[in-house]
């Protein structure tokens, strides 16, 4: 997290409190001063900055006549965000500022406040949610997604024996794709992705509720140039001896592509966001085999980085009800990784970038 320096920048004069005798300076400088003054300890209060900006905008900009009010407010927000005095990679500051802005706007416009969360980009954003039997969580998942002004929401319900579809339909105006048979959740993602046109694609599973604020960095990173924005699971991994086979395969696949820095992070886990460019290069049939998509992304030189760190591992542990099924899924994912490695070896590169320059094998025959 970026720590704002307590020393003011040279071009901003904040040493004296603003007094009525001196003319008020408008714009960035004034906002900064207000942000600083509102917090006695001296550290910057981005929420206050955002609130003031929202309050001001409410006087001059209206969302009343807009068909998609959330999106209209997002556009106003983005204009204010351009002037933001914090780093564009500080998502903590972003979340504070944008939530301040939203409340400031509603208060300023005299509208009952909604828990909207603003996107950090003008680009179109789609979200694909895959769900099987998630009647307990799908409602909450969609509630969180409704806080953001997405251009497209696609829910792929497959092989569902419970009321997931009904819950989703009753809750949302999203595009809902329903298959009576299970597709395999990775296929669901690819099927959903095929239905989107947006520039940024975000993927979630219907069994884990992610707060809207936590999704911002994934979208923001892709907006800023990352092609594949991953969830960083490394803080939740124990020492190697505790790892399961899937984690080992994920790390191995990254290592053999010289991306050991990614550790166990890969497209296998949600949430993740990808650019349209990445989607076009990978293609939906490869997207259905996430490790293969991950390997292709790295091998084609796409920008692959981690965004936020959301603990989805605990959700998997809860689903221990069917041990046998877990093992089958593990085998499936291990097989996916083998498929990914084999794909990289196309053209008889059986050692990838690790040639055997040391051995004189002919002598062994």
């Amino acid at each position, binding site marked *: 997290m970026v720590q704002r320096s307590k020393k003011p920048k040279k071009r901003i004069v904040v040493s004296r409190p603003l007094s009525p005798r001196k003319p008020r300076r408008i714009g960035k400088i004034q906002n900064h001063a207000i942000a600083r003054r509102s917090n006695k300890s001296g550290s910057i209060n981005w929420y206050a900055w955002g609130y003031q900006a929202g309050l001001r905008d409410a006087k001059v900009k209206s969302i009343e006549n807009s068909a998609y009010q959330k999106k209209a407010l997002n556009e106003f927000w983005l204009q204010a965000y351009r002037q933001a005095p914090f780093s564009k990679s500080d998502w903590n500051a972003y979340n504070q500022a944008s939530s301040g802005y939203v409340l400031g706007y509603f208060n300023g416009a005299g509208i009952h406040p909604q828990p909207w969360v603003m996107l950090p980009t003008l680009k179109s954003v789609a979200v694909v949610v895959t769900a099987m039997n998630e009647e307990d969580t799908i409602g909450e998942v969609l509630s969180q997604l409704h806080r953001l002004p997405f251009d497209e929401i696609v829910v792929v319900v497959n092989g569902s024996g419970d009321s997931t579809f009904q819950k989703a339909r009753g809750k949302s105006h999203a595009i809902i794709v329903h*298959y009576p*048979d*299970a*597709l*395999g959740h*990775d*296929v669901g993602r*690819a*099927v959903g992705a*095929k239905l989107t046109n947006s520039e940024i694609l975000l993927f979630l599973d219907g069994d884990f509720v992610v707060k809207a604020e936590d999704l911002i960095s994934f979208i923001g990173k892709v907006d800023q140039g990352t092609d594949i924005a991953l969830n960083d699971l*490394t803080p939740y*991994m*124990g*020492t*190697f*001896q505790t790892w399961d*086979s899937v984690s*080992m*395969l994920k*790390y*191995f696949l990254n*290592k*053999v592509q010289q991306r*050991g820095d990614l*550790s166990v992070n890969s497209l296998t886990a949600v949430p993740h966001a990808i650019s349209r460019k990445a989607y076009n290069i990978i293609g*939906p*049939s490869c997207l*259905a*085999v996430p490790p293969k998509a991950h390997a292709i992304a790295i091998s084609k030189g796409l920008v692959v980085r981690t965004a936020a760190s959301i603990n989805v591992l605990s959700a998997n542990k809860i689903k221990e009800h069917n041990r046998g099924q877990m093992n*089958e899924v593990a*085998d*499936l994912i*291990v*097989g*996916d990784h*083998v*498929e990914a*490695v*084999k*794909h990289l*070896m196309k053209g008889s590169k*059986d*050692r*990838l970038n*690790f*040639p*055997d320059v*040391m*051995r*004189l*094998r002919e*002598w*062994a*025959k």
Partner: protein
Amino acid sequence: MARLQEWELNNLIPTSKRNRSKLRSNSQKFIRNSNAPKLSVVIPVSNERKTILRVLKEVSQLHPQMEVIVVANGSQDGTRELALRAGARVISYEHCLGHDVGRSIGANYAKGDIILFTDGDIVLPASSYLPLIRAVSSGVDVALNSYSGVVNKVDVHSVVLAKYTLNNILGRSDLKGASMTTIPHALSSRALKVIGPSNLSVPPKAHAMAIHSGLKVETSGFINVGSLNPIRRKRFVKMKDPLENLILGDHLEAIYWLTEQTNERANLTDFTRKRQMLR
């Protein structure tokens, strides 16, 4: 490169003026090679004069009917001469043949029912090898050292990761990080025939071959070779370990071989995924 290969028994060594004085005394010969050995010990060496005699002394006690085969390649510090003097069957090569190639060469000449592989720079007491030998004589085809590497950290070494990964792919996660890459390990003569001596030059591939062809592969004893490995301690403390990349590549070669024998997923299930939905 002039290839030099010969069975060198003590009384047939061509003695140059330089060697004569060293080879005069026969009291240093403590290895008795049998002509019909039950146990063959294969030790590839390059320059290990500091440890080779101790290794040979331990190994020579393992079985009354045994042979010790030392494959000396690129030996310039007298290791070869020491092995000769001790009575081992020495196969010499002037130049270094590379990691593990010596195993293939030694295995080619081994006549025993049990073939034990170890290195010339790690001194282990004779008792360490016994569990491996007993396992093979009671039916195990490939008896492995269960030492799996240092695993109580997050950023584990690539080689440890690769060994665990390969075992997982082969459906033998029970073996953890045990592998034919690690010494010591022992093979039955049947295993040697099935795998083929030349494949021992790429140990992870031999490991995959052994498991895939249905041989009985088990761990039989824990021999902590990590702390004993002088190579890692001495030379590569600050340098990047070049062997790391070689071994990683070896494991990839093993995976390539496996997928050629089975399918691109090493025969792992795909049944729940309906790929046809994405045509």
